[in-house]
Structure formats: C-alpha cells, structure tokens
C-alpha cells in the first residue's frame, strides 16, 4: 500500500499518485464473499488519463487538466486563495461562516475522527484518506497564506498548483456523511471542510465533476431534471408507470398532475421515475388507497427533488430550492412531501430552511412521516405474511444523522414485516454507515471511479449488509430484502450488489420502503415485489 508520509507530500512528486490501494491487502468481506482473491479485479486508471489529468491516487473524480504554462499554474493557486478568502467573508459565505471558522480554529488534530471514517478504515488506514489529512492541508494554507500566521503556530506547507489541484480532488474522496464530526470531542467538522473545498473549486474556480454540475444541477435548472427528463417525457413516463402498477396490483391509479389546492405536493427524485418506476407507482397506490389529496408537478424542476448543490455549491443549491418552493406556492399546496431521497429531504427541509421566507416558506415533510401516518390511520388493510422474508434496513445518512428521522421508517417496517424477519444493521440509526454513494458519488463513474467507490466507500456498507444476513442461508434461492429508502443510496447499492454479483450468488435484493407497504396491502394482488433484478 502506497501512502503519503506527511501532509507536506501533497505538493511533491507531480504526476505520481500519493496513495495506491492493493486490493489483496484489504480486509476480507464476510461469507460468501470472504475469498479476497475471488473478488473482481480493481480496474486501473488509464495511462492517457494519468497523462492528462492531475493525479492523486488510484482514480480521478474531478478531471482537472494539468496546467501547461506558468499562467495556468498561477491561476489555480490564486483562484484557490481568492476562494478561501471568500469563505471567511460574511457576504460570500454567511451560509456556512460559523461552522467553517469553528472547524478551522478548533480541530485539535487528535485523530479521534479517523476510526469513524469508513473510507479510511476500508483503505487499510491509508493516511491520504484520514479525515484530518485534507483538512489539515486546508488549515495550513488558511493560516499561512490568508491569515499570515507563523508556520510555528499552525504548521507549515508549501503552496503550489499541485497542492491545490490534489486538494480539490481529495475533497471528492469524502462522502460528507459526517460520521467524523459526530465523534469529534470539540465539535470540529472535517466533512464540512471537504464541502467548503468543493465550494471554492466550484464557486470561485469553476471546477466541478461534470456529473454534479453540467449533467446535474445545470441540466436540472435548464430542462427540469438532471435525468434530462422534460415535462412532456415525465407525463408519458408517469402514465406508463400508472398503467404498469395497476396491472401488477389490480388497483387502478391515476397520478394527479398540477392539482391546484391539493394538500400535498409530492416530489420524487426523478431517478426513481427512470430507474425504479415501482417506487413512484407504489407511492401512487398508497396515496390513492389512503384517499390523500395530493399531486405531482409537471413544471420543470418541480418533479425532480434532487439538489446536487447541497454537495458543492451554495448558489446552485439555493436556485433549485427556491424553484421547488415557488412551484409549491403556485399550486397552493399545504405541504411538500419528499419522496424516498435522502439528500432531497435534507436539502429542502433543513438546509433551505434558512433560504425560504414569506410565502415560499411552505412546510416540508418526510414521506417516512406521511407513510407512517397512513399506516397509523388504519386505512390500509395489511397482511404482514406477504413480506415473509428476511429484511434489513439501510439508514440514509441524510435522514438519520443529519435530520433525526429514525423511528417512522421502523414503525412502518414493524407494521408490514412479520415478527422475527426484520434485523437491524450494526451500527444503525444515527450511527449508520453511508452507502458509499453519498455526496454525489452514486452518480459519478468517470474513468474507474465506480470501481474505486465499490472498493473504498461502499465496501463498509456491503460488509454491513452481509453481516445483517449472516444468520440466513446465503443460497441465492433464499431471497433477502435490503430496504433502502433513498434513491441515491439505491443507486449505489444496486451498483455494489452488481459488482459483487450478490443477487445471483447470495440472493440479496434491494428496494424502497413504500414497495414493502404495497407488497403487504390486502387490497392489491400479491407479489408486488417481483424479485427480478432491475
């Protein structure tokens, strides 16, 4: 395993990776995936990519082209310093000034947070992925070059374009899950600093992974959805989903669109509509069966709850959040309900809380709560025995650790899964591990990044999933359900199950929460969950 010896290595040996993982030295997974030499081979970065882009480790997320002139080198360094200065400004960074300054000033560099980071742990404790490694570089730049403090006070670092470019790349080796912050005895938040580095890169230097910006928030603001789905395609898709769902359930549904004065504006992650149509179909079934007054919006952006700015850019974040609220206001709904998407929950409910004022300040509610209340009302007749298979629950970080929504999803599972069939992961709830797709990784797959996240960020979650089912037969004919009530988490979990072939080899299937409800509804045909790999 190659790893840096010092934070000062960040600017040394241009073109050489600072860290490399030997997949055969990683901690083996639980059975039946415990033979490390039988795991898929880690795809290597191409020579062409190494030649063209800034190299940090085994992969590339951001695609920062190596500068070819002194002017380009200076532009990187000066742009970064200018952005760092703006992070200290009330005007430019009132959004996170206090949390930023707190984490810059008070980290004791005690390494308590390291053991909480699944990436650091699964890398075999590679120094590059230690949460404090990247923030220590930022801190040293901040104190030496912005605050002009003596290096004797806060440590020394040389600043060159390589340091800046690698630091930006390194900010995309963190899931922003904030497990590290949860363990900090002082209250410093090294995950926040990853996000602040991303902000400098995006908001000052215009450097962002394409999947998050051009193909993400920009596309969403331009055409209505990061999936590229326009309002017309949306309506076609939903019409198809309604028909398909009715065919499967025998329960007719017609999703209402743009119903002025409805109680609820339901906003899905549009990825659900494209990749997991059974999820919006199940929502429509439950909402119609429960007699809720609800609607989808066909206005651009109003049908896609994603908000990628939450991972890298405060302005892009605010633009999407305000648009969501404006559409709800136009429809005159009483509340917005967020579908099964963790970051959409946190973005619109918690973070946008300090953006939306006046008549844009429309109440937002988690679908976990809405669905829990439907179950509590007793309006649905449920037969738990239809879900008579092993079930475990993945807690999306955004719902639990970052919003405190922990109990409703468990209450629902308790109502629709037979006793003894549900088992928690260890740890779970607010101490959960990220799926590995957090902070945008689930949609990032350039070069060999997908392989990297399977081996590094998603490995801990896969380990947890296997551990949760260890008391069950791992025979593929014995199907096991991994409930993941979050679209991005589902994307990552789908990819990691496919990577290890865990559906074919161990019968591990995944899906959302609302599907479990519909699968238990007496008023629909049995077998909504079809156990077919999608």
């Amino acid at each position, binding site marked *: 395993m190659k790893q840096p010896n*010092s934070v000062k290595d960040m600017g040394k040996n241009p073109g050489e990776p600072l860290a490399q993982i030997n997949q055969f030295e990683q901690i083996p997974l639980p059975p039946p995936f415990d033979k490390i030499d039988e795991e898929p081979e880690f795809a290597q970065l191409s020579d062409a990519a190494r030649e063209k882009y800034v190299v940090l480790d085994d992969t590339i997320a951001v695609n920062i082209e190596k500068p070819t002139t002194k002017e380009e080198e200076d532009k990187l360094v000066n742009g970064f310093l*200018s*952005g760092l200065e*703006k992070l200290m*400004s009330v*005007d*430019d960074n*009132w*959004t996170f*000034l*206090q*949390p930023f300054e*707190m984490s810059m*000033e*008070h980290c004791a*560099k*005690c390494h308590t947070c390291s*053991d*909480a980071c699944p990436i650091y742990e699964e890398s075999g404790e590679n120094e590059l992925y230690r949460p404090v490694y990247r923030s220590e570089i930022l801190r040293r730049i901040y104190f030496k070059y912005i605050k002009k403090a003596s*290096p*004797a*006070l806060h*440590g020394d670092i040389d600043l060159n374009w390589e340091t800046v470019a690698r630091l930006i790349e390194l900010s995309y080796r963190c899931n922003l899950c904030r497990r590290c*912050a949860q*363990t900090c005895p*002082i*209250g410093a938040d090294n995950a*926040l600093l990853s996000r602040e580095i991303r902000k400098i890169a995006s*908001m*000052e*230097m*215009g450097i962002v992974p394409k999947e998050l910006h051009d193909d993400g928030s920009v596309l969403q603001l*331009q055409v209505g959805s990061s999936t590229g789905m326009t309002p017309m395609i949306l309506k076609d898709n939903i019409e198809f989903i309604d028909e398909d769902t009715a065919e499967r359930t025998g329960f007719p549904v017609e999703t209402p669109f743009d119903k002025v004065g409805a109680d609820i504006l339901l906003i899905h992650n549009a990825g659900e509509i494209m990749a997991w149509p059974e999820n919006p179909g199940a929502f429509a079934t439950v909402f119609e069966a429960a007699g809720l007054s609800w609607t989808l919006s066909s206005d651009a952006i109003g049908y896609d709850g994603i908000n990628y700015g939450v991972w890298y850019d*405060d*302005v892009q974040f*605010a633009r999407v959040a*305000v648009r969501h609220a404006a559409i709800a206001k136009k429809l005159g709904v009483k*509340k917005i309900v967020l579908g099964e998407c963790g970051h959409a929950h946190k973005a619109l*409910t*918690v973070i946008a*809380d*300090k*953006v939306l*004022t*006046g008549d844009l*300040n*429309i*109440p937002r509610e*988690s679908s*976990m*709560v809405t669905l829990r*209340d439907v179950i509590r009302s007793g309006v649905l007749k449920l037969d738990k025995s239809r879900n008579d298979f092993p079930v475990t629950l993945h807690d999306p970080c955004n719902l*639990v*650790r*970052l919003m*405190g*929504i*922990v109990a409703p999803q468990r209450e629902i599972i308790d109502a629709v899964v037979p006793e003894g069939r549900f088992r928690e992961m260890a740890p779970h709830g*607010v*101490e959960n591990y990220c799926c590995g797709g957090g902070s945008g990784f689930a949609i990032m797959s350039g070069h060999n990044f997908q392989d990297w996240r399977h081996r590094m960020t998603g490995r801990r979650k896969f380990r947890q999933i296997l551990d949760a089912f260890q008391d069950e037969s791992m025979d593929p004919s014995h199907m096991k359900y991994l409930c993941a009530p979050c679209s991005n988490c589902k994307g990552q979990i789908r990819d990691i199950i496919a990577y290890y072939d865990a559906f074919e080899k161990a019968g591990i299937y995944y899906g959302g929460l609302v599907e479990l409800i519909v699968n238990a509804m007496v008023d629909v045909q049995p077998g909504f969950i079809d156990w077919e790999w999608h």
Partner: protein
Amino acid sequence: MTTLAYVVAYLGLVFFLIACVARFMMWSRMPMHMRWELYPVAHEGGGKAAYGGSYLEDTEWWKKKREVSLIGELKVMVPEILFLVALREHNKKLWTRSFPFHFGLYLVGGVTALMLVGGLIVGYLPESIAGPVGKIISSVVPFLGGAGLVLGIIGAVGLFMRRRGRELRDYTAPADLFNLIFFIAAFGVALVTFVGFDRDFSMVETFIVNLVTFNLAPIGDGTAGILLILSVVLLALLVAYIPTTHMSHFIGKYFAYHSIRWSDEPNLAGGKQEAEIQELLSRPVTWSAPHINADGKKSWLDVTLEDQSK
C-alpha cells in the same frame, strides 16, 4: 519582586477575561448560517434524544410547539465537560491522557476560584464569619490543589508524548508542543513550591487574600518567596495565553454545540428568523465562477432568482 507578581497576576486575569469576552463576542456575532445540525440533538424532547430522533418525525411538526429539554442538554453537557465522555467513547487512548489533564485544570481553576472567594470573605467580612469559612477553605485547598497540579502534569506529559509519537507527529506544530511545555513548567514550578515550601497553601492563600484586598505586601523569603513569585508569574502568563490559542475551545465548544450541532430551531413562516434571512439574502455576492454570474453588486437573492433555463 513580589509587587511584580501582583501586577502580573492582575494583568493576567484581566487579559484572560477580556480575551474570553472577545472570543465569546466573536462567535456570538457571527451571522445566522444554514442549518447543519447533527443528531442526536440532546435537547430533543419526548424521548427522541435517546435514539437520535427529531421533531421532524412528528406529524405536521410546524404546527406544534417544540419540546426542548434543558435537562436533556445538561445530562449531556455536564458529564461531557467534567469527564470528556465523547473522547472516552471514541478515543480511549487519548482520554487516559486528556482526562487527567483537563480534570487537573478544573481542580486548579476551582481551587483558585475558591481561594479568591475565601480572600474576599477574609478581607471584607467580620472574623466571626471569615474565620470558620477560611478554615474550611484552607482545609480542602491543599488536597484539591495538589491533586490538580499532579493530574495536570501527568496529563500534559502524556499528551506531549502522544504528540511526539508517530501517529500525530506530522500533525503537530511547534506551538502545540510549546503549549504543553508551558503547562508542565507552570504546574511543575507550582508543585515544587507546594511540596517544598507551602504544603498547607498558606503562602498562596495569603497572596490571593492580598490580591483581592489590593494589599501588595511581600510574601515569603528566600527560595520559597522566589518560587512563589515564579509560580504566580508563570500561571498568570499561562492564563492570559490560553484564550489567544486554539485552547480557547472551551468557549468555541459552546458554540459548536449550541449554534451548530444542536441548532435545529426551524424558520417558521412569519417567524423571528425571517428578517435576518432576508437581510443576509440581500448581501452582495463576489464569487467568480461564470455560472454564479455575480458582479459584486448582485445579491444572493438576485443570483438565486436569475433564470437558468437558457
């Protein structure tokens, strides 16, 4: 020479207070920020804090009065401050060094405060009250003070060794080592004074009574007097130095918890937060990336509401 000790002690205490107030004001005057809470949030009521739940789990939470439990906060904060519970849970190895260090500081600080109060009582109240109270204070001060100095030195030496170890060496600035050496030196000299010349803390108690009654009389002579002066000067300088460094985290930590980790108060429609949010949204943006489209005059609201569909 003793006069110098009195002057340095006054200056040290005054500087400490001013620096602490300045730090407190700096953190408290920072603008409202986006919500960035982290669960569990200790003040969540209704039993939610125990598993990390929040009011967002409630049906129509925006129509309900929030249950905020001060007791819940105290149940977390008091053990955290006294026993560094989070560190014990997540980093036992460091806790075995950090806990004695911090607890030693608390004892030394507590004993100093006790002696200050005792000094005021002895200096300004009649003998009938001052006598018995002074006796009680005098009886506990040597034990607690001695224990505090010993624990503080053990902890500081342990932390120093750890910072020099392989894992932390690269993350350690010269100032981090200096801070610990400063503690070891100041506490060490005080301990030598206590063990060698002032086992009942009478000299230091007299010094503090004189300090609060503005009686700058000389105390002790020979080596004892010199050591007392040296102890006072070093401790006063240390007290003045602490709030100027990252060791002021005892102030920052309050805001880290109350203004960030546990800051979950919602901005309700028509509520008290809206005016401040609107003021912040009217501030100019100077971020340079082309997609921001800022010119230094446009506000957050302007760049947010610009049509991005083209």
